[in-house]
Every structure is written in C-alpha cells, then in structure tokens.
C-alpha cells in the first residue's frame, strides 16, 4: 500500500493530537509544582442559607419491630413515648438497625461493643408505611428519627455534649516540608443550646429541631431529628418533651 507522505503525516499528526487529548483527559493530576506560599489563611465558618438536595437513590425500606431490634443488638432500647408529641397521631412504624453489634476499637484505643438503631416515627397524615415496599424517599420525607447508639463509657454526659458542640478543627499542611498549622475554627453563631435535664446534658438546636444527648446510666447516645432535615413534623417543645421522657426512662431503667 502506498500513500502520500505529507498526507500520512497530516493524518498521523491529527490523530496523535486526538489520542493525546484522550490520554490527557484520563491522566491523574500532575505532580506537585513548586509552591508559592500564600500570605495568610483564615477559616471562619459562616452559615449558608440554602444548599442543594443530596443525590439519593430511593430504595425500599425494611424495618424491624422493637422486639426484634432489641434481639438483634442484644440490649434493651429506650422506646420513644410518642404520646408526649401530642396530637397528630404520631406512631413508631419500625426500627432500622443501622449497625449490628460489633466489637470496635475507637481512636482512643477503647474497645467496646458498638451498635446503632433508628426509630422511625411518622404522623397519621404521612403516607402509609408498607414494610419492604415503601421507598426511602417517601418514608424519610416525613419522619422523625430517634437514633440510639452504644457509647464506650469514655465520656460523661457533659463531656459528650461539649465534644459534639465543639467547632471543627482545621489544619493547613505544606506538603513540600511537612509543616502543619492547626486551629479550632469558630462558627459565626452556633445553632446549639446546652440544656441540663437532671445529670443529662442535651445539645439542642431549636430551629431544626434537633437534640443530641448521652444518658450515662444507659450507656447510650441518643439523637432526635427530622429525617432529611426537611419538613415541620415537631416543634422544639415537642422534641424536648420526647427527650425528657427518654432521659427519664433511661435513667430509671423503666
């Protein structure tokens, strides 16, 4: 086969450019370049008014009964008393086991039996829940979630609350020499209040509403929130009423 050399060169050059583009598009980032050190850095946290919805993949939800969830985790749960939420026909539709029991060694070297469950509470006006059929996008669009997790007996309730409320830690590392500077960054305004109920300390966000607390005697961390962060399913007072009864139950063992 013969062909004109100039045409061949033009063809191969253009195709070579094409292949270079292809490879350029799939290459890992280039190696580090010599750095130009910035003069300063700041990490003030500021609230944002809105944010995009998460990309989710709706799937059928399978929930357990309270009894079967207790059997799975091998520990008694504190069942939320939905009656204190008042009118609206609140009901527990089931319990999701977020983490089956497993021995876990945490960052402090403490090994303990870890597990986590989530009570799903809906109102009578919410779409009827059909176990194994209702999609997560439907259920969690109008549900209150009460999660309960084992705690390793490292912190008391007050320490646990302060740990959760602590602002994030920021570190800037210069990779060429390994130097690192870290600081605790401040939020422009914390959304949390610290509320004491007996010897239990509740981190509460009135505007969400949201609550986080550790019940020492039950060795348990509890969070109350609206699933997906959307909808107005309960007021701050309703949430605190629920927290109060759970603290009472967890403290007395009733």
């Amino acid at each position, binding site marked *: 086969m013969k062909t004109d050399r100039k045409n061949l060169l033009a063809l191969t050059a253009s195709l070579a450019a094409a292949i270079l583009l292809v490879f350029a598009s799939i290459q890992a980032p*280039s190696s580090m370049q010599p750095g130009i050190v910035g003069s300063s850095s700041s990490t003030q*946290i500021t609230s944002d008014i809105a944010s995009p919805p*998460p990309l989710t993949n709706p799937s059928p939800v399978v929930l357990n009964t309270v009894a079967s969830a207790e059997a799975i985790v091998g520990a008694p749960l504190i069942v939320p008393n939905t009656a204190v939420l008042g009118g609206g026909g609140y009901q527990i539709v089931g319990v999701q086991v977020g983490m089956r029991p497993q021995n876990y060694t945490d960052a402090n070297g403490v090994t303990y039996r870890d597990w986590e469950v989530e009570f799903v509470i809906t109102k009578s006006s919410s779409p009827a829940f059909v176990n194994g059929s209702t999609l997560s996008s439907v259920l969690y669009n109008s549900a209150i979630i009460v999660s309960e997790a084992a705690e390793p007996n490292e912190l008391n309730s007050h320490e646990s609350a302060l740990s959760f409320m602590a602002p994030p830690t920021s570190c800037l590392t210069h990779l060429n020499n390994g130097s690192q500077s870290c600081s605790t960054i401040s939020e422009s305004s914390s959304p949390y209040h610290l509320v004491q109920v007996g010897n239990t300390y509740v981190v509460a966000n009135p505007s969400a509403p*949201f609550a986080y607390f550790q019940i020492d005697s039950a060795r348990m961390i509890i969070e109350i929130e609206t699933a997906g962060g959307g909808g107005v399913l309960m007021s701050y007072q309703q949430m605190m009423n629920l927290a109060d009864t759970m603290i009472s139950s967890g403290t007395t063992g009733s």
Partner: protein
Amino acid sequence: MATLEATPHAWGNDKDGSVPTIGLLIIPLLLISAAFLFLQPQPVAAASQCSSNGGYTYYYAAVGDTGSSAYGVGANTTMSSWTFNTPVSEGHQLWYVDMSYSTGNWVQMGYGIGTLDGTSASSIELYYEYGIGGSEPYYAFLSGYPIPAGDHGYAEVWTTSQSGGDWYAEAKGYSPYYSISWSITENVGSSNKEGTVSISTEAEYATPYSGNCDVYGQYNYSRLPVYTTSASTSEPKSVGTLWSTCSTYNNAPYSVYVPYCYGSGEFWGGS
C-alpha cells in the same frame, strides 16, 4: 515491502514514499483512540441566560455513586475554565465532593468563588461546607491561596475513626500549585457514618440578576472518583474504589462529567 530503518523520523522509512511498518501499526491504534474520543460524552448546548428576581436561584448538577452505602468520596478536577461574570457579591460557583449521610446530614469539600451568605471569595479558593444536626449549612473558604487556572485539585470527605461513641468526618482539599492540603475534622454524632456520595457543581444567583450564566466550560470535568466502604483513618484516594454505577441530575445549563458518567444542571429552589 517497507522496512524499518534507523532514522530520526519516528514514522520509519520514508525513502520510497511507502507506508512504513511502524505507521501500519500506529494508524489502527490512532483510529481506535479517535473512536474513543467520539464516544466520550460531549458538552451539551446549554442555556446561556441565568436569572434571579431577588430570591435564591440555584443551578445544580451532580453525578454520584448511589448504588451502595459509602463512607467517603474523593475526586480530582482541574481548575481551568471558570469564568465568573457575576459580581462577586451576587452569586457563587462551586465544585465539590459530597458525603450525604443516610440521616440527611452532609459534608462537602471542593473549590468555590463568590458569596455565600455575606462572605465572599473574589478568587477561586478551597471551600468546605456542612449541614449537621439540623443546623443551617455552614461553610468556610481558605483565603490567602487563590487557586490558579490549571491547578489539578483533589477533594475528599470521609468518615474517620470513632471516639466517645461519635463518628468524625474529615474533609480535605489539595492545591498542587501551592503544595498544600487543607483538612477539617468534625464530630458528626453517633448516627452519621455512611450514605451516598456525589460530585457536584453549583451556581447561585442571590440578588436580582439577569445575564449570561457563569461558565465552567459548560461542564466541569472530574476524574478518578472513588468511594470507600468502611470507616477508615486513611484517605479515600488511597483506599477508595472506583465508582461502579452512576446517578445523575438532568437539566441545563450546568453539567458535571466524570469519565463514564455525565450529568447536567438542575434548576431547583429559586425565589
């Protein structure tokens, strides 16, 4: 018959004008490569007008691996083609990786420019944002390190070790140009550990605005997206698994593209 001789030309023998042997080998490879080029998703024609009548108007694009619960996400991007036409005070553009926990809370790390709720970055900077505990989203820019065009950045978010019964999220962004990494560690509570992961672009117009959309080169190209399947102190880029499935949001005018997954911007929210 063409023969290959020692020659300064990479193409081989050119004495008789015949196609050299090495050329015969290269041409099919080049044709195959060119075919791959055409198979890649191309930028779509996009609406050029973005507007806001005074509320918060968002354009949003995302691709994500939602096939399984993940404990972390990471991805590369190249900061090469952002054109921010909007006054800095009137909007923002972002590229970020997102870890959305099953509870609905989330943490993001990436790059941004513009204004979020009153604080501005007049040039592209590393950017961090989170929504935990039902609070309004909070964000931060790393000022002092304006990211230049062509910087090959990497951003990641993952669930790290647990302490005191709570999980911690770590977010980290890199600038090879400055040879820096910026990391933020945060207590995310006892129930936030895994969820879905995605790569997103976002544009917001916060004040009355009607004009040309800011440009990401029509799509923002992201490479080597990975996810992690267990909580780990290691970074996703070193322990992650390449995405196996992709979900996208579809609409114009913005889009985000990874080598085998292409999604375009969705209008949502608004005034």
